[in-house]
């Protein structure tokens, strides 16, 4: 089958071939899921938000201006949806903390210790999930999506210099996580 560009697929969808949208879904689902899972630190939430993002972007396709790449536009939707989900989640946790005095209950966002006994790729994913959301976003977009700092700055709505600083800090933070978990041998 001929490899269609994102723009060609979008044109086809806008002409009424809604089923062609599944091509875009298949193209971006894994990477967008990786980003969401790292930001939300929960597979169920990531899946739910991923579905919403694709539905939202389908109905917003008409408003997509072709000045930027589709990927930049789409990841902006993904990023904003994840940020909204996180703020809702944090508010919910805060409310629960107010109503229940649970000193022994750690915040649910951390990755369980037992999970650090797996293969290299999975270990790295878990280490990245330990990072704060803005670090894992920058790492995922820069390394996994091969995006430039400029593109990332458009997605997370900040300056290019800020993205560079975040990238530097996230590498250092990842190094810290790896050494805290004694994973140097397995990963480095």
């Amino acid at each position, binding site marked *: 089958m001929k490899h269609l560009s994102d723009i060609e697929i979008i044109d086809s969808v806008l002409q009424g071939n*809604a089923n062609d949208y599944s091509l875009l879904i298949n193209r971006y*689902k894994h990477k967008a899921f990786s980003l969401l899972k790292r930001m939300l630190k929960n597979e169920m939430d990531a899946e739910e938000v991923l*579905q919403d993002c694709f*539905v939202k972007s389908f109905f917003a396709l008409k408003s997509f201006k072709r000045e930027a790449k589709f990927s930049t536009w789409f990841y902006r939707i993904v990023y904003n949806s994840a940020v909204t989900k996180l703020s809702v989640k944090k508010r919910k946790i805060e409310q629960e903390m107010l109503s229940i005095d649970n000193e022994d209950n750690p915040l649910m966002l951390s990755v369980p210790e037992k999970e650090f006994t797996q293969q290299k790729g999975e270990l790295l994913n878990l280490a990245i999930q330990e990072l704060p959301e803005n670090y894992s976003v920058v790492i995922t977009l820069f390394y996994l999506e091969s995006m430039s700092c400029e593109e990332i700055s458009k997605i997370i709505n900040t300056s290019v210099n800020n993205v560079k600083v975040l*990238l530097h800090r996230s590498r250092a933070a990842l190094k810290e996580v790896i050494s805290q978990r004694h994973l140097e041998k397995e990963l*480095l």
Partner: protein
Amino acid sequence: MKHLTRNEFNRIVDNELSSQEKIVVDQHLFDCSSCSDELKSYKSINSLLFDQNVEEAPTGIENLIMRKIARKLRNDKSQKTFFRFIVSLFSVGVLAILGFVGYRASQTVLQVSLDSNMIQWLNQTSAQAKSFISLAFGEKNLRSLEVTMLLFLVLSIYFLVEKYKTIRR
């Protein structure tokens, strides 16, 4: 030279050093094993990140998404039909009100110029409409029909405003 900073390590990894800076840094790395080791770990983190795996989305998620889209498209279609129905209702309401107003006006204010063909036609049509409605609903119900029409009009305006708000959202 002092030990290299975190920023310098990152700039080395990202190939952002100028040629002059590079000479100074290379010289320091040659002399300082601690910075040399630190740079190695930065470089291995960098290559590790380049080799990272994509996490696979759950299987069949595209079908779920396409089904959600189809459902939403259907809902939008039925909303459009409902909207068209409300617009028609609104138009009927406006026409009915205009008809009644026209009828009453021709009965009172315009009675002096009854010789005008247009007014005569209006008068006749209104009278026919009135007799038809009286036949269908009875003389007593004529006023309540007017009120019902007015109610329809108000309701239509309300639905139109609500729809406009949804579109704006």
